[in-house]
């Protein structure tokens, strides 16, 4: 029991006081100071007990620190060395604890600040190096010179085009796929196998090159346009399969996603035992990494653009001109075709670059292709779908009649108001056939061939006159012809032959009368005899040419029909003659 210090304040020693008095005093003291003494005992006990003091201090310390911190910086300055030493000690002892604590919080902040400053520079540098020696690089370098832009900027301009095709969230320790998301229409192999093999290859590289834990494989290139970017966290890693050339801030996106997953599911990741259903919730985060960016056309303030534009406008103008001109020609041609005798156009259109014409055409109508050439149009651009028909157009009817009659060039045909006018001249047989043929032709109401001359009749008449003008002279008192008349006689015989042929063609029955004459010097009888002999003489010559004797007759007129009054011998010579008459 603790000794009460109030005992030492008594005026008497206990053995000198009366017991009753001592008791009373003690009782009185208890009544007066009792509660305070108990309180003092309690305070003393708290002050003497370190554990109680710690407990009491813990109750007020946070508020006290908070209050003082709001007043001045003495608390911060006071505890700074201690905190520093504590951190230092923690790092020396087990840095993993501090890394685990700070990693999800500090990582994103540091990366964001650093990445935003240097990513552009690094990216530009990387791409510049990559493309500086290629053919495309040289082309872009020229573009950089022309546009006065940095080469790196030009390279980026042409290469910023990518798509994140797949995202794997892989448990780092077991290499198992926690979640896997893909872009649309991307075919993939079994993600578990791919992820495991990828992890094995990373382990293989890390082991082979004796890399530190933080120096792991973070990029794999496949061909020229596919890469795998890997971002590694404490418990899991993200692998992104990317097509194209992604910007460096994509890596930041991957990193931030990984940090977010660690922050929200850190404990679950650490305790991961292969059950992936617990991580369905992270799929939206991973899908957010399935980014894509497409190249956008850049506006170029470059003369070539204007040159090209001008050229294009010029070409369009030229093409428009030719198109309009072509259209006009086409319309004009159609009009001409519609007016063309024997052609009926029902429809026409331009399709697949070709002009199609539909309708009907009489075989005797003009060829539509010939009309194209007249209008300077190309036959290859036209397709004619014209059915055959019989036209009643006068011109076509005339052509058709002309073809049926096989008209000679000397004949002219004209159709007017349904009447066929035939003029010119033609042979007698053709005229006869023509008349027969026209009886069967219905496209005309009647025909008029009064102006059509019969060539054979004309020739017959002409030859008849020519024959009747012939005469042959004879010797005095003789039936011998005067010398020198043989050519004339020969011509006469030829005329006779033609005459008989014509007469036959014209179906005319003709006869030639050979009439002999004499001068007036002799007696009447003698002159009759000699004149008959002279006619017989000519007949005998004619019959030698195989002419039909039935077509001839002779007569001797003596000196009854003198050709000339006889005053001189020359007159008498002209009267000793044979003349020709055509009978029938």
């Amino acid at each position: 029991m603790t000794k009460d210090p109030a005992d030492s304040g008594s005026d008497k020693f206990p053995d000198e006081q009366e017991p009753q008095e001592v008791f009373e005093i003690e009782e009185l003291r208890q009544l007066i100071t009792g509660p305070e003494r108990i309180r003092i005992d309690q305070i003393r006990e708290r002050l003497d007990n370190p554990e109680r003091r710690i407990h009491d201090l813990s109750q007020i310390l946070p508020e006290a620190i908070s209050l003082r911190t709001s007043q001045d910086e003495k608390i911060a300055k006071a505890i700074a060395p201690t905190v520093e030493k504590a951190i230092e000690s923690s790092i020396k002892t087990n840095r993993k604890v501090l890394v685990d604590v700070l990693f999800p919080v500090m990582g994103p902040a540091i990366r964001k600040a650093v990445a935003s400053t240097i990513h552009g520079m690094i990216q530009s540098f990387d791409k510049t190096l990559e493309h500086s020696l290629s053919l495309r690089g040289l082309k872009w370098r020229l573009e950089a010179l022309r546009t006065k832009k940095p080469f790196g900027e030009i390279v980026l301009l042409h290469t910023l085009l990518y798509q994140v095709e797949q995202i794997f969230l892989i448990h780092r320790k077991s290499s198992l796929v926690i979640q896997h998301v893909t872009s649309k229409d991307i075919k993939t192999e079994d993600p578990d196998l791919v992820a495991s093999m990828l992890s094995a290859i990373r382990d293989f590289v890390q082991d082979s090159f004796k890399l530190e834990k933080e120096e792991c494989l973070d990029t794999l290139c496949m061909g020229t346009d596919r890469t795998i970017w890997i971002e590694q966290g404490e418990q899991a890693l993200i692998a992104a399969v990317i097509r194209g050339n992604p910007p460096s801030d994509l890596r930041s996106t991957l990193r931030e996603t990984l940090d977010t997953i660690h922050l929200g599911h850190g404990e679950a990741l650490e305790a991961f035992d292969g059950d992936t259903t617990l991580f369905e919730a992270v799929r939206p985060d991973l899908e957010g990494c399935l980014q894509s960016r497409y190249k956008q056309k850049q506006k170029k303030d470059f003369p070539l653009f204007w040159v090209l534009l001008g050229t294009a406008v010029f070409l369009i103008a030229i093409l428009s001109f030719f198109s309009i001109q072509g259209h006009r020609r086409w319309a004009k041609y159609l009009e001409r075709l519609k007016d063309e005798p024997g052609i009926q156009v029902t429809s026409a259109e331009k399709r697949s670059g070709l002009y199609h014409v539909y309708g009907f055409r009489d075989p005797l109508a003009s060829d539509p292709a010939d009309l194209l050439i007249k209008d300077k149009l190309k036959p290859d651009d036209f397709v004619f779908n014209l059915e055959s028909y019989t036209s009643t157009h006068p011109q076509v009817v005339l052509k058709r009649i002309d073809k049926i009659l096989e008209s000679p060039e000397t004949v002219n045909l004209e159709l007017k108001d349904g009447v066929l006018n035939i003029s010119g001249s033609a042979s007698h047989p053709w005229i006869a056939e023509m008349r027969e043929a026209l009886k069967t032709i219905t496209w005309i109401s009647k025909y008029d061939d009064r102006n059509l001359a019969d060539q054979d009749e004309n020739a017959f008449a002409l030859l008849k006159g020519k024959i009747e003008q012939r005469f042959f002279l004879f010797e005095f008192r003789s039936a011998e012809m005067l010398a020198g008349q043989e050519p004339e006689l020969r011509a006469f015989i030829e005329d006779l032959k033609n005459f008989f042929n014509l007469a036959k063609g014209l179906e005319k029955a003709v006869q030639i009368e050979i009439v002999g004459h004499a001068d007036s010097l002799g007696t009447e009888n003698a002159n009759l005899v000699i004149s008959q002999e002279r006619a017989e003489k000519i007949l005998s010559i004619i019959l030698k040419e195989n002419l039909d004797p039935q077509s001839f007759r002779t007569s001797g007129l003596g000196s009854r029909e003198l050709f000339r009054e006889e005053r001189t011998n020359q007159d008498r010579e002209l009267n000793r003659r044979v003349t020709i008459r055509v009978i029938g």
Partner: protein
Amino acid sequence: MNLKKKICMLGVYSVGKTSLVRSFVSSIFDDKYLSTVGVKIDKKLVEIEGQPIEFLLWDIAGEDEHFSVPSSYLRGASGYLLVMDGTRKDTFDRALDLQFRTEDAIGPIPFIVVLNKVDLADEWQIGPQELARLDKMNWTFIKTSAKTGAGVEEAFHKLGQKVLHP
């Protein structure tokens, strides 16, 4: 529940690890990975007590004088098959050594001893003495034949049970 487990195939060179899994798994990789990267990964679906489990089988290249199993390949495994060749007694001792090193690297995890090539009964070399040693260590073992398929499914099933209830 969608459950996946990493399972390793361990054993010295030419004990038949690859043959054991070849006919029982779905694979997209060529065996050449074994000689290049040192591992080939296949997938096998097993059902234990009504629970489907996807086994990601890490068929690690057999150890020889030039190659030892990298510990990084073992990391995160939920179990493993320790494969021995019943016709080669030396594979028994070397497998025991490999098991000790594996446990040293990644700690104690479920495993099954597979005595392969049981179809070659005439050439069998692992006798009662060796089996007694396994019993003494309380190791589960199964005789299998990659050629006939005997015991293979059972081996995976038993390992699955151990993995599910370690």
